[in-house]
């Protein structure tokens, strides 16, 4: 039995249709990330699960029980809020114990559970402090502590790391993932950050404009995006989209004399698109220097480099393919000297093909 089941859920804010028919099943113990740009309905969806927003159509089931009309307090859910939502007039201990006290937990048990949760999050030395005496990272740990101290059925995280600086975010990502492994609880995590989604999720649910665009494991979505939107959303720097035409064995790139060879195994798929426009999606890391990647699945291009952005371990190179700007991710040693023209090869087995009209992958 699925732990959480959402059936054709709709939510309106006045005339604004925020969630447009979402169907979702989340099995017990899974770490699911709802990801999408701001305004895509991901937070709204999370808040309907918590019961903080009423739904207009559809149903939400937890462990087989429809909870549409169940008050938040009776849904047995724990939630971590973006702005921590800690009570400034309570100590860290009281903040963490707040949910346990609502459930009339005996005092001894409260002390044990708070001690255990704070130990897991390494905040056991802060229990007597007040929130104003803590740093951003510590506040976030307390907020998480307040959620995990309870034995809830589902744990919800609403962009919990977006107020932290980059370094702390990296640290907390790992921390939350570790907690999930230790507790084995069903967790639903909302973020707009595709890196958080990729690194933390068992399954990503990518939302766009109130609907699910695609769901699956992070690598599944990364390697086999269903649409141009998904392909462009995941990955950093994002995928390059190159406009071209399908001719016999090649894709010729518009407004240039470049062309890419279509590998044998793909040819069948593209027969219906012969002599039609197509978008070729190439991830930056699937470019490499021509002289080192010389194999029949690679297609060669000679490009003019416009910009080089070294990050240390990798260098990002910007150039143009036809009218489309493109970025390649190369090793720093691939860019010896001030050469402005460079031979690149593209791993054609990893390239995706997109129908420009439907924006679906072929």
């Amino acid at each position, binding site marked *: 039995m699925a732990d959480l089941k959402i059936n054709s859920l709709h939510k309106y804010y006045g005339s604004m249709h925020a969630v447009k028919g979402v169907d979702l099943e989340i099995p017990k113990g899974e770490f699911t990330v709802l990801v999408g740009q701001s305004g895509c309905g991901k937070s709204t969806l999370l808040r309907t699960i918590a019961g903080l927003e009423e739904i207009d159509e559809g149903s939400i089931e937890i462990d087989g029980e429809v909870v549409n009309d169940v008050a938040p*307090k009776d849904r047995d859910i724990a*939630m971590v*809020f973006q702005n921590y*939502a800690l009570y*400034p*007039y309570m100590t860290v201990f009281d903040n963490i114990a707040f949910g346990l006290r609502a459930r009339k937990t005996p005092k001894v048990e409260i002390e044990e559970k708070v001690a255990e949760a704070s130990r897991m999050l390494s905040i056991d030395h802060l229990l007597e402090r007040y929130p104003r005496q803590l740093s951003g990272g510590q506040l976030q740990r307390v907020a998480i502590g307040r959620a995990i101290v*309870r034995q809830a059925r589902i744990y919800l995280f609403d962009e919990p790391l977006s107020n932290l600086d980059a370094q702390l975010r990296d640290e907390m990502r790992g921390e939350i993932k570790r907690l999930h492994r230790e507790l084995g609880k069903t967790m639903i995590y909302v973020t707009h950050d595709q890196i958080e989604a990729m690194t933390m999720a068992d399954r990503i649910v990518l939302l766009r404009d109130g609907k699910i665009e695609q769901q699956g494991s992070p690598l599944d979505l990364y390697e086999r995006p269903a649409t141009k939107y998904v392909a462009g959303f995941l990955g950093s720097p994002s995928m390059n989209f190159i406009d071209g035409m399908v001719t016999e064995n090649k894709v010729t790139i518009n407004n240039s004399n470049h062309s890419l060879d279509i590998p044998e195994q793909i040819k069948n798929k593209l027969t219906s698109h012969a002599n039609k426009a197509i978008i070729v999606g190439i991830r930056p890391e699937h470019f490499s220097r021509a002289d080192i990647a010389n194999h029949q699945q690679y297609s060669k291009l000679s490009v003019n480099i416009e910009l080089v952005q070294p990050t240390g371990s990798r260098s990002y190179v910007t150039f143009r393919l036809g009218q489309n700007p493109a970025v390649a991710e190369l090793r720093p040693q691939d860019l010896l000297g001030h050469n402005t023209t460079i031979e690149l090869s593209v791993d054609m087995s990893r390239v995706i093909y997109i129908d420009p009209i439907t924006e679906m992958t072929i």
Partner: protein
Amino acid sequence: MKTSHRKKIKLALRYIAVVALTILFLFPIYWLFMISFKTANEIYAYPPVWWPETLQLSNYRVLFEDGDAATVGNSLIVAGVSTIFAMILGTICAYSLARFKTGGEHLANWIISQRMIPPIAIVFPVFLLYVWFGMVDTYFGLILLYTAFNLPYVIWMMRGYIMDIPISLEQAALVDGYTRWQVVWKVVFPMCRAGLFATAIFTFVFAWNDFIFALVLTRTDVATYTVQVTHYFGGQSNFWGKISAMSVLGTLPIFFIVAFMQKYLVRGISLGAVKG
């Protein structure tokens, strides 16, 4: 050398200004207290007597012996009870307006507009109504009126304080297993405590200082001290000793309330109530 000299002069001027202003504001209060301790001769003496020869309490004794001092008690009862009612009712209404958008955008504006009616415009219709219901000269009548009159103010102020509370604090409590009433008690009240006290003090002072309603709606049973004071202005002579003694009795409760609640008053007025 020169700059430090200039700094000293500046500081000195500042102190002089502070002392002068303090004297300006404290003098009427000082004068009020002094008159209440003077004999009739001293009150009318010229040049004025700055410090009475003996601090005699006969003015106060008369007030207590005649039972006039009980009007201060009446004031305490009606102002106190109506403040409690107005705060409880008003805060609940304010929560409803702030969080459930009860009555849409404009109900709150309409409510505060009720506060802008001049009391004199409604006091006689209210009097007729009270005569009808037999509520003239009763505690209940005055408490009801002050509660009603102060409600708009309480609702307006508390609505502002409540809207300043991050809503996620309440939602976190709801998800944690608390009912809406518990959330109001455990989250909303502590979060706007300073605002609650500041609003309550103002509400109390409004009722405490009211003259016009009390004058029209009371006779003898529940006359407040503000009404009682006017009885000492006579056609033949004014009883300045009793007037001042009664005024002192009327000033003291407010003085103590503000002194004890100064911390909340300042924080509440500056709307810093909810910064953690």
